[in-house]
């Protein structure tokens, strides 16, 4: 390095000089050499995580702007801003400053709306990204921990969303907090005191907005940034997964280099996400707090909805049948609140643990870098579909009143139907999905063995008409045959001649996972197939 600087005979360009200057003080050349030409596998479904990341960056940028104007105080003032219908109305400083951002600061409404839309997109993109990871098995070794980190990010994102939603101290967000207060109070033993501490006394008190603000702009963002950084470090360490394709093996990563193509595409994509959010923010109103008015514990309007990602929790509360609350041992047991929380908790823990469960069932200790096609893992895909159905049922329940009024149904009918969806729906979805996956696998086999329909009809000497099937070329074929199946675990006694309960459970789950399976076509089968036909 030093020789390069001292012996340089001709004049260097500015860029070269600058890079040398920086490198001699940071040793950055090693990173550039290591990362700059890394191959980054490319597929549209890999963009979902990028959407989440970029939406988060937009949230950070727009949120920082908002902090310069928002005042997280619940002191009472009489509104005296530009929005005439609320002039003179008593409200908190938080609400008044949010109205000022919307009506008295040029471009303030634009940034506020972009912040809210970006937050909604952030959570949505994380959700879709997680579905992609799940259905392609991209959580398998060595990526189990990154799945867990991503899951934590999903929960943090929802917490960020809820705390932010509560800050303007308008009627809707205040009602959301009232619901949170009621839920916390339903916790056995600690609930009453937790609510008392959170709200700094009785609900609503005058502290909650300031406290949520600290969480919203300090604690939670710090955690999100830290976990995002960790998440991305692991993406680099593991290298990205890729879909099966000719030339792609478990031992390589194929794609455009980070510099320049991937950087240009991803960098451009950031601006596209940013631009689309700007477009939405300039065209579509979100959270018009001036229509709701300041928080007051007495009024409420019908048909109000939480932000979309809280819907599943709100829906779970609605689906509990009457009467699930008891007084026992002189204490109140609010199962109408505990059961939804426990059900959601179990759902989250199962989803979080899924990579470890599947690995245990398979006993597979190898690294997996080729993403599965969902059809080639029918049981996993069916489990995912069951989970999605469960979530969707809870989510739909958050709009039970709107479903009833829009479709002229009874409230009770909608609730009972959704109770059925949440309890029976997952089983139906599981069964249908598994059958569809297996049918698609059979179709793949059919295509590999007999080729695809060419559309060319030929009349045979005997007068019979047949459609000529063209065989696949080897590249196309590879896409359809390059997957593995697993066989059910055979139960065997261990070294002490015993069959443990764990092994029994594992064998049972293995049977459940892999009893119905379609193996990929082998060379022998293809040759035998050709023999029959020609």
């Amino acid at each position, binding site marked *: 390095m030093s020789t390069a600087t001292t012996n340089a005979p001709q004049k260097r360009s500015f860029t070269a000089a600058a890079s040398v200057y920086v490198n001699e003080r940071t040793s950055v050349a090693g990173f550039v050499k290591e990362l700059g030409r890394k191959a980054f596998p490319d597929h549209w479904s890999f963009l979902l995580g990028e959407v989440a990341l970029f939406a988060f960056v937009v949230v950070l940028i727009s949120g920082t702007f908002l902090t310069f104007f928002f005042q997280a105080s619940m002191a009472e003032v009489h509104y005296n801003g530009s929005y005439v219908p609320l002039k003179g109305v008593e409200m908190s400083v938080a609400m008044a400053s949010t109205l000022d951002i919307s009506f008295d600061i040029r471009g303030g409404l634009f940034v506020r709306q972009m912040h809210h839309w970006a937050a909604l997109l952030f959570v949505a993109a994380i959700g879709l990204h997680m579905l992609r990871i799940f259905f392609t098995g991209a959580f398998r070794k060595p990526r189990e921990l990154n799945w867990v980190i991503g899951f934590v990010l999903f929960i943090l994102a929802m917490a960020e969303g809820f705390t932010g939603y509560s800050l303007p101290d308008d009627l809707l967000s205040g009602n959301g907090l009232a619901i949170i207060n009621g839920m916390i109070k339903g916790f056995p033993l600690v609930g009453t005191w937790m609510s*008392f501490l959170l709200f700094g006394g009785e609900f609503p008190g005058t502290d909650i907005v300031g406290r949520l603000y600290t969480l919203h702009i300090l604690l939670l963002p710090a955690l999100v940034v830290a976990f995002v950084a960790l998440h991305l470090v692991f993406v680099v360490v593991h290298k990205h997964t890729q879909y099966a394709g000719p030339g792609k093996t478990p031992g390589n990563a194929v794609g455009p280099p980070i510099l320049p193509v991937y950087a240009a595409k991803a960098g451009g994509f950031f601006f596209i996400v940013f631009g*689309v959010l700007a477009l939405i923010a300039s065209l579509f109103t979100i959270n018009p707090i001036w229509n709701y008015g300041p928080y007051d514990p007495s009024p409420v309007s019908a048909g109000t909805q939480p932000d979309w990602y809280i819907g599943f929790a709100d829906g779970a509360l609605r689906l509990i049948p*009457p009467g699930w609350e008891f007084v026992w041992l002189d204490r109140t047991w609010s199962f109408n609140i505990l059961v939804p929380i426990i059900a959601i908790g179990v759902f989250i823990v199962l989803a979080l643990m899924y990579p470890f469960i599947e690995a245990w069932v398979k006993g597979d200790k190898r690294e997996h870098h080729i993403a599965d096609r969902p059809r080639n893992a029918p049981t996993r895909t069916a489990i995912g579909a069951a989970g999605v159905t469960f979530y969707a049922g809870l989510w739909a329940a958050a709009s039970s009143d709107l479903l009833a009024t829009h479709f002229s149904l009874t*409230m009770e009918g909608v609730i009972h139907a959704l109770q059925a969806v949440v309890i029976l729906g997952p089983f139906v979805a599981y069964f249908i999905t598994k059958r569809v996956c297996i049918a698609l696998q059979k179709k793949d086999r059919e295509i590999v063995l007999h080729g695809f329909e060419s559309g060319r009809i030929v009349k045979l000497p005997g007068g019979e008409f047949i459609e000529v099937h063209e065989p696949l070329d080897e590249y196309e074929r590879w896409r359809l045959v390059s997957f*593995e199946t697993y066989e059910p675990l055979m139960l065997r006694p261990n070294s002490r001649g015993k069959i443990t309960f764990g092994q029994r459970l594992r064998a049972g789950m293995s049977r459940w996972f892999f009893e119905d399976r379609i193996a990929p076509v082998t060379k022998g089968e293809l040759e035998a197939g050709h023999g029959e036909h020609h």
Partner: protein
Amino acid sequence: MAQDDHSGTEIAAADSSHAAPAASPGTALIAPDSFENPGFPPHRPRVTDEDPKREKRAQRTVYTLFYLSILGSVWAIAAYMLFPMESNNVGDVRLNNLFIGLGATLALLGIGFGAVHWAKSLMYDVELVDERHPIGGSPETQAAAVKVFQDADRESGFSRRAVIRNSLIGALLVFPLPAVVLFRGLAPQDQNPIELLSHTMWKKGTRLALDPSGAPIKASDVTMGSAFHVIPEGLQDLEHGKLDEKAKAAVLLMRLDPKDLNELPERKTWSYDGIVAYSKICTHVGCPVALYEQHTHHLLCPCHQSQFDVANHCEVIFGPAKRPLPQLPIAVDDEGYLIAQSDFTEPVGPSFWERH
């Protein structure tokens, strides 16, 4: 875990071709005559690689998009000045939002689409191939890492000096506890939530007043079938904690035909000529139960759709709530105004652990 490795031994023997230190494939089936990877298909050049005209056109598109972005930025700045919103007119706010926003959109999308188009149509589209290496690193590195920990353990005596180690672990577990205790300060020291939750602002003789004006209500003003949103008189004059009191004391007042009311004998005196008052705070999670259906006498909570039957002491007829809405015993004073006979006889609002 050792058993796991046994479960697929036969299959493990069949595999072991890839993955350097042969990890167990578990129950994976690897067919002996599966297809071989055919290798990369031949590279297909793009139109911009072959046709200089198309290349030129792509180049033009890219720089046009970048110039459009500059135009968008300039437009957004101009819109900031051209569309003021200091007129107290909501329409001006809309225009300001729309035109600043569209300018920013153009500025951002111009860069975005330009960069992506550049990458896709003009930059080299040859894919690179990286070798993957086992994530755990080489056995030598792993052994070296193990040795570091062993050396550190030996040199510090972490395993050997168990008393020191355990006392340190104990100290580390206990030292955050004072910080936890400090958080007791989140709520006032001299108050007890259970005590606070058990009482509201209502007391004997408090007049029922209209929400939000605070005007007291005469029994004669409450016509048959009507419903009023009610607060205790004097709530609006409170210096502090107005919302805290309102969150507990909000009441719904309804007048039914006395024939429709199925009143318990001990509560016969709690109503006045068909006028009944119930807490407005839902016993589920505490939303205001604000929707009254006059002809069925049902109250509906808009948050989670619990329904209460006013004719039967607001018992729950549907939804997740369990308890009826608490009733406020009312009477009429000398001047004909409705007054409370007492506070609620039970805590209002959502259930809590210590409630019984």
